[in-house]
């Protein structure tokens, strides 16, 4: 599916939200990702729909050393150009030599040098059709040679009549020559008459800043940008037929010129990406085909859109470069890492759709603002080396596209995955006979046992055929072997394969392996949309709980399905289910208080409040109500394990407009039970000043109240008609009243509190100021 649709979808929830008028920041927390979930839930199979992916930078290696200029302003490299395949590049240094490298070997294959006194003025390119190299020396001398020629001086030379800016050649296209004054010639036609006169396209004082050459299926285009008195122009020179189009770039803040350009072609449009020193990355899209009529006339203003606003720390960027990787990713070098302070020596990959940082790497030494990309490698001169950094997009999902930044945040709040919780280790022994987190000793043991260890692909094959035990064993070994960072791509594949085998083969089910995979936190619903449903089908409620806990993107429909399954489960069955020990201990401590004497804090008594509400009503009614309410208040209406599972539901993220229709499917009996449970929780919370005191995972009071409201919204008419629900509704009414009262009281003092806030701001007084004071 196309990207443009994705963007539309992204905008949609905002509109939807306005129209439905949802309130409360709590509910909007996961606004747009949830919209994706809805789309998923409508069509769970279309996982290809979402084509974004998680980029990763691999360990880099040095291709060659540099001889940077004395002042360290330039790297000493003029250009890196692709050679015959993805493993060969031609590196042209800024003085006299051209070197051919085999990248994977980090080895020069051959090197050519012009005579002393001559300089190469543009980087050498490789013409893959003729297997020749083309370079220009001293501005006007075009040199062409083949790999076997050793001496450059004896190679073919042709002197042209005007200074050449660059020679461009890309695979599938002919070499083109771009002259400094803007004229463009195909190399062949130029060589047929080297001394032909070259026209001047550019105005006086207009100079070329950057150029490239793009070949689409139909057309070869030379693109170059120029600068004239602070204005920047873009020229599109199409070849065969030759047409020239001139665009003017919108001005950024005065004095700022683009630091780097990068062009790519997609869908018959040329996408130009440019980076300004203030960290803004703009994108402009122009059609490959000319507009026809207005060619060559007035320079059109090129529309642009702000793609990224990179954090730049202090000061403006000096040497930085942005390079398009694909339609959603940009590699940026020379820009600070947002979470690593002010140093600007980072290579980062940003997702432009979500404005998230996908990967970052610190580059030692000075960054020169140069960056090339060929196939899946980035070439960066930094310090005194030219490094090659391979990168990759393994197939991934929205959740991972949320980026490293968000992951870092969640890891702050939750325990990091690599640190075992004692609870987990002690209580999950049954569920996971062998945890992913092991001592080194056991790990090495296991390794030696199963050596030679199987690769990812082997295991994927294995899962499709092997018996349950073997699969479980191998997955475990694999997980224990891999470090958490490298896990991300393969976990998704593993889980999907496991789930699809389980769906196909009713006898095959590996609960422990799946639980392990979920525990890695590298998995999310959109990677493996069938997992939760499979768990529900196999009544693996423990896995369901894990999924609810760890997946950030569970669709509302699935949440509702889980809720239905949990609430309809008989308590007897529920107690057999093994659940997360944290939740159990939380519920146990909550329930333990119901048995003990009711220690009311601060004189708060809900029962008394009821009485005051029923003033004027006959005593008998009040007694009735007490009979009706007190038991529900005291005793938890559901069993311990069921309560734990329900708590997990309460803590999942949702968007109420999408949840509401699914809630309507619940039967009135279930709604009543759930409401009673929520009421129980509410009372416990408000009585004992209890919430979150234990640091255990537990639903917040707001979450509880939100669910109460949702359930009432979905089933109000039914509840009103149900006689058993009457007492409950009356109770809930009094809760709401108390909440409203609290909020209104808070509102009263809001002004004073804000004043307090303002008062604390103290001005910094300099050496001298003139102030006005008033005495009364």
């Amino acid at each position: 599916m196309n990207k443009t649709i994705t963007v539309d979808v992204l905008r949609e929830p905002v509109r939807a939200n306005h129209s439905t008028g949802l309130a409360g920041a709590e509910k909007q927390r996961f606004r747009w990702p949830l919209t994706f979930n809805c789309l998923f839930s409508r069509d769970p199979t279309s996982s290809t729909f979402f084509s974004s992916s998680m980029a990763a930078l691999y360990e880099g290696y040095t291709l060659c050393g540099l001889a940077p200029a004395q002042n360290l302003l330039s790297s000493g490299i003029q250009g890196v150009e692709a050679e015959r395949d993805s493993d060969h590049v031609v590196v042209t240094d800024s003085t006299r030599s051209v070197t051919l490298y085999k990248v994977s070997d980090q080895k020069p294959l051959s090197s050519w040098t012009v005579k002393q006194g001559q300089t190469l003025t543009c980087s050498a390119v490789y013409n893959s059709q003729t297997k020749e190299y083309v370079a220009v020396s001293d501005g006007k001398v075009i040199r062409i040679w083949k790999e076997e020629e050793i001496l450059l001086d004896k190679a073919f030379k042709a002197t042209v009549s005007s200074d050449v800016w660059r020679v461009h050649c890309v695979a599938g296209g002919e070499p083109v020559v771009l002259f400094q004054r803007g004229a463009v010639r195909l190399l062949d036609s130029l060589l047929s008459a080297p001394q032909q006169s070259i026209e001047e396209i550019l105005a006086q004082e207009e100079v070329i800043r950057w150029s490239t050459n793009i070949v689409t299926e139909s057309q070869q285009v030379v693109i170059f940008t120029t600068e004239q008195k602070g204005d920047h122009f873009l020229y599109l020179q199409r070849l065969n037929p030759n047409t020239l189009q001139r665009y003017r770039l919108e001005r950024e803040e005065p004095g700022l010129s683009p630091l780097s350009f990068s062009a790519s072609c997609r869908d018959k449009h040329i996408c130009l990406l440019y980076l300004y020193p203030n960290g803004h990355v703009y994108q402009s899209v122009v059609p490959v085909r000319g507009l026809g009529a207005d060619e060559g006339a007035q320079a059109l203003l090129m529309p642009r859109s702000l793609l990224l606003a990179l954090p730049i720390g202090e000061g403006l960027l000096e040497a930085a470069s942005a390079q398009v990787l694909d339609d959603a990713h940009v590699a940026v070098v020379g820009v600070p890492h947002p979470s690593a302070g002010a140093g600007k020596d980072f290579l980062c990959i940003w997702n432009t759709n979500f404005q998230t940082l996908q990967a970052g790497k610190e580059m030692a030494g000075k960054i020169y603002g140069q960056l090339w990309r060929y196939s899946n490698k980035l070439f960066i001169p930094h310090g005194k080396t030219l490094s090659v950094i391979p990168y990759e997009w393994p197939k991934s999902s929205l959740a991972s596209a949320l980026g490293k930044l968000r992951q870092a945040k969640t890891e702050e709040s939750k325990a990091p995955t690599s640190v075992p919780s004692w609870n987990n280790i002690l209580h999950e022994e049954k569920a996971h006979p062998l945890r992913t987190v092991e001592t080194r000793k056991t790990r090495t043991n296991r390794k030696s046992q199963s050596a030679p260890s199987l690769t990812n692909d082997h295991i994927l094959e294995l899962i499709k055929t092997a018996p349950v035990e073997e699969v479980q064993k191998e997955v475990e070994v694999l997980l224990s072997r891999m470090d958490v960072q490298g896990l991300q791509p393969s976990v998704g594949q593993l889980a999907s394969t496991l789930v699809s085998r389980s769906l196909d083969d009713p006898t095959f089910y590996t609960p422990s392996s799946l639980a392990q995979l979920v525990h890695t936190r590298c998995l999310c619903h959109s990677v493996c949309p069938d997992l939760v449903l499979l768990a529900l089908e196999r009544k693996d409620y423990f896995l369901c709980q894990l999924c609810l806990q760890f997946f950030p993107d569970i669709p509302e429909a699935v949440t509702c399905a889980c809720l239905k399954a949990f609430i309809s489960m008989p308590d007897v069955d529920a107690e057999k289910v093994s659940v997360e020990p944290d939740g159990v201990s939380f519920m146990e401590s909550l329930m333990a208080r119901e048995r003990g004497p009711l220690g009311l804090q601060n004189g708060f008594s809900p029962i008394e409040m009821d009485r005051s509400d029923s003033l004027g009503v006959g005593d008998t009614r009040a007694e009735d109500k007490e009979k009706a309410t007190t038991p529900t208040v005291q005793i938890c209406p559901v069993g311990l394990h069921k309560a734990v599972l329900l708590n997990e539901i309460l803590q999942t993220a949702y968007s109420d407009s999408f949840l509401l229709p699914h809630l309507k499917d619940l039967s009135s009996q279930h709604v009543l039970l759930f409401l009673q449970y929520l009421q129980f929780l509410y009372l416990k919370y408000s009585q004992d000043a209890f919430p979150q005191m234990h640091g255990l995972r537990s639903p917040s009071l707001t979450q509880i109240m939100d669910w109460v409201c949702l359930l009432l919204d979905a089933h109000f008419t039914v509840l009103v008609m149900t006689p058993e629900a009457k007492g409950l509704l009356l109770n809930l009414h009094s809760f709401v009243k108390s909440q409203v009262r609290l909020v209104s009281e808070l509102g009263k003092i809001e002004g004073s509190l804000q004043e307090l806030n303002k008062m604390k701001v103290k001005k910094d007084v300099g050496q001298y100021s003139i102030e006005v004071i008033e005495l009364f």
Partner: protein
Amino acid sequence: MGEFKVHRVRFFDYMPTAIRAMAFNSRTERLALARADGALEIFNFADNYFQEKVIPGQDGRAVEALCWVGQRLFSAGLNGEITEYDLENLRPRYTVEAYGGPIWTISSNSQGTLLAVSRRERNFNDIQCFDFVFCDLLGRIISLSWHPSGTLIAAGMMDMIRIFDAETGRATHRLLVERGVGASKSKEVVVWSIVFLSDHTIVSGDSAGKVQIWDGVTGTLVRTQLVTKWDVLALSVSNDESSLVAGTSEGTVVQFQFISSTVGQQDKEWVRTRTFKNHSHDVRALAHTETAVVSGGMDTQLVVRPLLDKVEKNTQESALRKMTLPHRSLVCCAKKAGLLLFQFPDHLELWRLGESDGHGKPGDSLPVKRKPEKLIQLKRKGEDHICCSALSPCGGWLAYSTVTSFRLYRLQNNNISITKVSKLPKDLRSAHQLCFSPDSSKLFASSSHSSVIVVALNQPECKYLHTLKPKSGSRQPVHLLFASEDGKWLATANTDCEIHVYNLDKLKLHCTVPVYSSCPTAIAIHPTTSNLVAVHADQQIFEFSLVQKEYTEWSRKLQKQGLHSLWLERDTPITHVAFNPQNPAHIILHDTFMFCIIDQSLPLPEAKTPFYNQMTLRSLPEPQRIIHSHAFKICKNFQHLMCVSLLEDHSLVVVERPLLNIMSQLPAPVRQKKFAT
């Protein structure tokens, strides 16, 4: 009340210097304090700790020790000189070469007849009215203490203490002081301070951080108390010898008391009792008064810490006092020209205030159109430090004086030129205080015996006119001078608490204000009513009518009703009084922490009315304010004030010197106590 445009000035980089030595005269209740630049200050502890005298320093004078002999004050320093000070003329009276190297310590016997000083080379000598007695010894004497009987002297040296017979000059005992442990084992231990008690107990403080109690009769060590890991620099004992304090280079002061360790037991011993931490740097000087521990050191603050067992709790007397800024004005403001003169010990700075043409609401900062600029930095000549300076209201004259010389300069501000007036009257050699007449035609310079020299200023020379002398015959120096706006009156105040008013037309004494027991800290004459307003060190305010020669009605009312307790509790003196020409009922006063406008037309605050009521008034609607407002309008927006003055354009100039800025400019504490070290 009104809006004021305030020039908030923070570019006066006044920096007090470290306190080196202290001596407390319990008879006169005066504390003498010596600073690192050689300046001497006298604080009157009986009069609200008022800094009544300042003797300016001198290059090369480094006072190491101070000593009162009766009313006479002696100092000795590393320049090898013993100096006696003339406290009436605020200058050294004479200096005696001790014919040797640096002098570390000076001490007098209790009879006040003998002075002992220790020198580097001949090591030890006694002086009796400059008769030297030599005791040849090896080793340097760092500290000295006389036995109250006057027959024995204990001397703290390197690694040991010696006890000498004062008559024969022979050593009777040698007490070896143990060195520090660990790395400092190889370093000599320095006995920084020593105290000889009447029961022949010797207390020593040394560089190994020990306070040691010795028996001076047998020469044995009685007790060792390790109080710090660094040095014990100073010791001081109370008059009744029941309490002793030790100052350390961690900034702490440790108290020892001579008490019985268990209740009901008779035999007393020295027990460490309290630790005070009021300093960030070394405590170099200590004094133990009847009721308080006075300490000072590298952090330039003088701290008076009352001992709570000696004073009544929760009274003003029991409050801790820290004195950092001087009790006199170092800033002179030329009202008409908008110039500020800052006085430093070794130079003067002349600044022009900035300008703003904006108007703003109260609380706003106005855009500064023209920044303030430093016009002149004038270095003093000679080695004596500047003791007073003045700038004429028109900004055309500048004068300063040291103890030995007087200089007058003519300024041209439009093209910033300064020319020295070379022909000066012979009588004008030095001044304690300077003041120009409001029309800049006369210069008043206070001279010896409370006299004031009047000089007429006209170019190219200035002429001596008259010397005004009080009839009281007081010998004390004049520390305050004020010439009235109409040019008719000149008021002087001296440290005998006398305020004299002269009629300048007749060049005669007009009247003397009834002498009040506390020293005046600021005086001024009202421009229209010719009432003299005097504020005293005990915070009392008097208004005296020069025409009727009696206290005004308002002053009597104020005395009758009494000042508000919160006003009296302030611990810094009012250092400047000014008037608002727009509203004759307004008196502008300031101390270090606030400035106050007294509106004489409003009722005085009663004892129970909230005194600091500006915040309350601000929140009240306009008509209700008048009910709640009282005469004292206090503004605490600006703190650590060096000067508050009203310019001719009715804008206020506020010169602040935040203590934090002073603290941040101090050198790093030499030995800072770090947690868990």
